[in-house]
């Protein structure tokens, strides 16, 4: 086939631009505008008036457009409703705020400011552990004999398991000895499960038996250190049971017609449900032993609602009195805690019982030091300082329930009563843990006095100071006392010998210090911590606390120049010697820096310190580091780099980037950021010089360009490199560094053959062609304005790129190469214009270099012919059945290219376009609507000046009728 010659259409870019631009229409205030923020007004009208369209004709519409999304939701959307409902994580945060409100709203319902039991559970389980062996003694008491016959075929394991089940099934005494703590927990969980199973299979009596046996375990105080955790585990079972019974009876009240409302009254409960409920209470009332009877009845306290209105208010005081029968003070205080827990849940308004529990507890407080308890401790080999803290969870809970929304007078009375009792450290601690922080903070000096008077042998004092510190972190003491409080407290804390005790206390008090004092005091405290934690490398066991100290300090010192002027801050960081912890701490610091640093900085103290911090993070990267982790580190380091600015001292800035490059060479995103920063620096310089570089700035800009040029090859990502070459080339061009720009573009061209067919994007392998196409199109746009090198031939960069494209191994059955050729055709057409579409300031592009020289145009046209020949060749190969669709669309696209860029007055080109039109329609693969639109466009264009010849063309382009 003879090669078609190419004739570019002459373009008048200015006129085209003017004709394309939309007519500007002055906009009245209140008119509809698509970009105006939507005003959501709650109007119930269904009429949505949105007359306005994108057309340039005047558009008027009502200013209150009903947002269809919000109108559906009727003001409340499910997300915010969800957020408003309680969730434990937000509760803690909400607590400080709501605490203040507490005094005013004295409604009886437990609000979100009440820290729920669920949040205490985990803490207790984690804290009260044991390595001693435990035992479970279960007696399922039944007269029937064992009914277990296991087939011999079963494996030993299955058989023993079945036998265990049988044992549960019917009465036998089962004593499980020598259980580790984990075994014990598992067993209890099994019991919980078998309770549910028994209930589900309608074995109510068995369920009750399990619950009774479980609560019986609470009277056993052997391995006393574990008791608090045991309480947690077993009361979980009781809660399950209580819920099951309540739901069962509730479901009996539901007949076919109606469901009982949540706040029902006993009259609405039918007789059968009442009788069943009564039966439960009778059964429980006949439980022989006190402790199980108490716990099981307490667990179904809520069921009293079915029987009478006053049921709960009669039951609670009785159960409260019943606890007095429990001799062991530890068992008894936990029983009270359970009762308060159930009480708060079922009837929070019955405060009297809560108070009675508290005062009854005080009455029995002396028992802790009685002979019975002391003998038991000797027997178990437990010291008093480790015994007394076992009371704390239960006491804290009781105290918390009582003090919740309690009037000031009651709190004062409670405190006075506690004061009167001998060795009240334990009480004092619970008062501080449970009462509202404001109450404690206001009396801080009193508390310090009381703590000092406490007997040293009993409850550990550091725990008391810790509790006080926790309150002071939440609420502020009177201004005048603040320094004295710190001095008094720290005097004691600093004397603590055991590093663990010390750090637990110090960690809490750092918050108070940071909140109210200057860097001087904080420095003193940090120095003290270093002094205590360094001997014997005690810090190794306390990383979490040390980390928490750092977090508190940086949370309060947002100004990093102040922070780093705290002398002991960096030495403090040196204590984090385990790398993972060290990196964690560094990350925290950088996060805070990025969040709070508003202004770019050049403060040498900050720079030095943070470079050190970033270096630590960077150096932690190794072959095993996860991608996510690397990304996170790079993000943090980049955040830092972006915040460094030496103002007009560009040289200094560049040398900082040089230093940063040598420090962070293992993190690719950081290098990318550095290249961008340096490019920005070059453009900044250009801006300052208003485009006219002096000898000095020209040299500086070349230095910047050189920086980029030598940095890019060290990157791994191929498209990162390509794009950076292009980008840096553009910057070089803008700064009149022509030969450097050429070097960048040549480098990019020589890199193209290396682009693999598949690339890894976010862990998935994807074909790279579409990315390559995108890059090349971008590249062509730049090549338009790159002037030819005097020593190389005409359009040498384009030619080189074409060679590379030609040699690149393209995906089979892909048209990308042809799409690229089409783009090249566009580029060449643009290049043959007299004046180019755009220019770089102070750079003469080929249009002014050649000035429309005919030799240049001839070269250009020759290139076009070659490219066209390639395109037509490819179209021919697509004449096979499976490729017809591609042929049609590619043909149409080529047609469009000729229409846009070619001079159709040329007969051969004109003929070619007609042929292409037919080709596109030939096999019926084309979208008729597109063809109609195209034809309409041609007709429209023909009305433009100098385009009359298109009228004739339009006549030669028939539309295929649908068959």
């Amino acid at each position, binding site marked *: 086939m003879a090669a078609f010659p190419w004739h570019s259409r002459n373009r008048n870019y200015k006129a085209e631009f003017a004709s394309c631009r939309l007519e500007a229409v002055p906009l009245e205030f209140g008119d509809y505008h698509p970009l105006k923020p939507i005003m959501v007004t709650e109007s119930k009208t269904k009429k949505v008036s949105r007359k306005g369209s994108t057309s340039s004709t005047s558009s008027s519409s009502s200013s209150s457009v009903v947002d269809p999304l919000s109108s559906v939701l009727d003001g409340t959307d499910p997300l915010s409703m969800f957020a408003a409902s309680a969730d434990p994580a937000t509760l803690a945060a909400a607590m400080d705020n709501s605490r203040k409100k507490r005094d005013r709203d004295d409604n009886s319902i437990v609000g979100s400011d009440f820290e729920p039991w669920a949040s205490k559970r985990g803490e207790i389980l984690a804290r009260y552990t044991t390595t001693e062996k435990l035992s479970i003694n279960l007696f399922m008491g039944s007269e029937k004999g064992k009914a277990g016959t296991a087939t011999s075929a079963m494996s030993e394991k299955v058989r023993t398991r079945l036998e265990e089940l049988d044992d549960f099934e019917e009465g036998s005494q089962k004593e499980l000895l020598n259980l580790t703590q984990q075994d014990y927990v598992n067993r209890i969980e099994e019991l919980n499960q078998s309770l549910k199973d028994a209930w589900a299979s309608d074995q109510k009596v068995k369920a009750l038996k399990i619950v009774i046996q479980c609560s019986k375990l609470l*009277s056993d105080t052997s391995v006393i250190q574990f008791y608090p955790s045991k309480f947690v585990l077993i009361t979980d079972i009781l809660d399950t049971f209580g819920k099951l019974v309540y739901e069962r009876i509730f479901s009996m009240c539901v007949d076919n017609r109606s469901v009982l409302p949540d706040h029902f009254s006993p009259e609405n409960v*039918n*007789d*059968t449900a*009442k*009788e069943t409920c*009564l039966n439960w209470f*009778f059964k429980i*009332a*006949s439980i*022989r*032993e*006190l*402790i199980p*009877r108490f716990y099981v009845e307490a667990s179904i306290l809520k069921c009293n609602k079915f029987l009478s209105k006053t049921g709960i208010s009669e039951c609670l005081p*009785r159960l409260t*009195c*019943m606890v*007095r*029968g*429990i*001799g*062991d003070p530890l*068992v008894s205080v936990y029983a009270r805690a359970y009762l308060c827990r159930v009480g708060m849940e079922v009837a929070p308004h019955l405060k009297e019982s809560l108070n009675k529990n508290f005062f*009854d507890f005080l*009455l*029995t407080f*002396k*028992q802790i030091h*009685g*002979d*019975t308890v002391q003998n038991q401790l000797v027997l178990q080999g437990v010291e008093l300082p480790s015994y007394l803290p076992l009371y704390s969870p239960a006491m804290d809970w009781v105290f918390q329930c009582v003090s919740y929304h309690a009037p000031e007078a009651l709190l004062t009375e409670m405190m006075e009563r506690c004061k009167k009792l001998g060795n009240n450290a334990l009480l004092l601690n619970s008062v501080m843990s449970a009462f509202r922080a404001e109450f404690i903070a206001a009396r801080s000096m009193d508390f310090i006095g009381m703590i000092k008077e406490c007997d040293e042998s009993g409850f550990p004092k550091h725990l008391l100071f810790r509790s006080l510190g926790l309150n002071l972190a939440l609420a502020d003491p009177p201004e005048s006392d603040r320094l004295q409080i710190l001095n008094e407290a720290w005097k004691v804390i600093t004397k603590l010998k055991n590093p663990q005790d010390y750090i637990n206390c110090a960690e809490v008090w750092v918050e108070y210090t940071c909140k109210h004092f200057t860097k001087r005091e904080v420095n003193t405290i940090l120095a003290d911590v270093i002094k205590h934690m360094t001997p014997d490398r005690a810090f190794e066991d306390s990383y979490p606390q040390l980390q928490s100290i750092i977090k508190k300090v940086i949370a309060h010192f947002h100004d990093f120049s102040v922070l780093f002027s705290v002398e002991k801050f960096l030495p403090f960081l040196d204590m984090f010697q385990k790398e993972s912890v060290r990196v964690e701490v560094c990350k925290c610091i950088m996060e805070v820096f990025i969040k709070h640093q508003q202004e770019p900085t050049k403060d040498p103290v900050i720079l030095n310190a943070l470079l050190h911090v970033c270096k630590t993070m960077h150096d932690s990267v190794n072959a095993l580091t996860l991608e996510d982790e690397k990304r996170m580190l790079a993000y943090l380091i980049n955040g830092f780099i972006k915040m460094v600015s030496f103002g007009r001292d560009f040289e200094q800035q560049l040398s900082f980037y040089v230093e940063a490059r040598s420090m962070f060479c293992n993190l690719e995103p950081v290098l990318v950021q550095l290249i961008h920063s340096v490019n920005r620096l070059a453009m900044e310089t250009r801006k300052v010089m208003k485009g006219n570089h002096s000898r000095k700035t020209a040299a500086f800009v070349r230095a910047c360009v050189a920086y980029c040029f030598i940095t890019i090859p060290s990157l791994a990502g191929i498209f990162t490199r390509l794009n950076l070459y292009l980008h840096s080339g553009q910057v070089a061009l803008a700064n009149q560094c022509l030969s450097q720009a050429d070097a960048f573009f040549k480098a990019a061209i020589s890199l193209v053959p290396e682009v693999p067919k598949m690339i890894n994007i976010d862990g998935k392998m994807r074909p790279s062609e579409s990315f390559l196409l995108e890059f090349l199109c971008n590249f062509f746009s730049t090549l338009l304005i790159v002037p030819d090198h005097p020593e190389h031939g005409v359009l040498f960069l384009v030619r080189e790129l074409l060679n590379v494209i030609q040699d690149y191994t393209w995906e089979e059955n892909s048209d990308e190469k042809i799409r690229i050729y089409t783009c090249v055709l566009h580029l060449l057409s643009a290049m043959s214009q007299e004046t180019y579409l755009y220019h770089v300031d102070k750079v003469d592009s080929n249009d002014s270099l050649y000035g429309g020289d005919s030799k240049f145009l001839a070269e250009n046209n020759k290139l076009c012919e070659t490219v066209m020949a390639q395109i037509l060749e490819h179209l021919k190969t697509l004449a096979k059945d499976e490729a017809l669709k591609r042929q049609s669309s590619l043909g149409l696209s080529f047609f469009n290219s000729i229409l846009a860029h070619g001079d159709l007055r040329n007969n051969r080109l004109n003929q070619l376009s007609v042929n292409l039109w037919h080709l596109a329609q030939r096999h019926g693969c084309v979208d008729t609507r597109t063809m109609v639109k195209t034809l309409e466009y041609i007709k429209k264009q023909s009305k433009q000046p100098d385009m009359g010849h298109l009228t004739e063309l339009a006549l030669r382009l028939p539309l295929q009728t649908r068959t």
Partner: protein
Amino acid sequence: MGTTLDIKIKRANKVYHAGEMLSGVVVISGKDSVQHQGLSLTVEGTVNLQLSAKSVGVFEAFYNSVKYTLRCDMRRSLLAKDLTKTCEFIVHSTPQKGKWTPSPVDFTITPDTLQNVKERALLPKFLIRGHLNSTSCVITQPLTGELVVESSEAAIKSIELQLVRVETCGCAEGYARDATEIQNIQIADGDVCRGLSIPIYMVFPRLFTCPTLETTNFKVEFEVNIVVLLHPDHLITENFPLKLCRM
């Protein structure tokens, strides 16, 4: 499943008094039509006297042996079995008329107040005070009171309430007396706090108690024992006769 018969008594608690109407429905459920030759209801009241295994000539408890059942029979043709369903119900004696007056009782237990002590000198010293709100009790109301361990040399193991039913059967030859523990409720577990009152509270078990009954030939009476267990092995019991009634 073939045809089934069920009796549903109107009252959920199945408790009736003399002179009252026992009403309800018999539910016959089956897939197909049911042919039968009559449906009959029978009420039976039985006293099942059993000879005691322990002592010759003595009957076991009277109380448990009284039983009322309602029986429903469906007679059917030769080919199908007759169907029967029984349902137990409870008859309470008519509540007594007149006003119930509480009869409170105070008590003090010390080593000196005890009887049946072998070696009084070996007993540890203790002082337990308390009161029962009433020894004459309404059967549906719990037994209540208070107890204070004022002092005790020995540690306390447990304090329990023991409900005992005493049945006496007499005739010309003499009488037989049989005491049975019917409920034991622990009210204190372990060495309780001195000087702090502990509640006495016991619900009368529905199936094992009835109003105190006294006829010429036999009596059913109730007593409560307050049982205190001291370390290492002392058992102290204080006995209170009760009078139960239904109001």
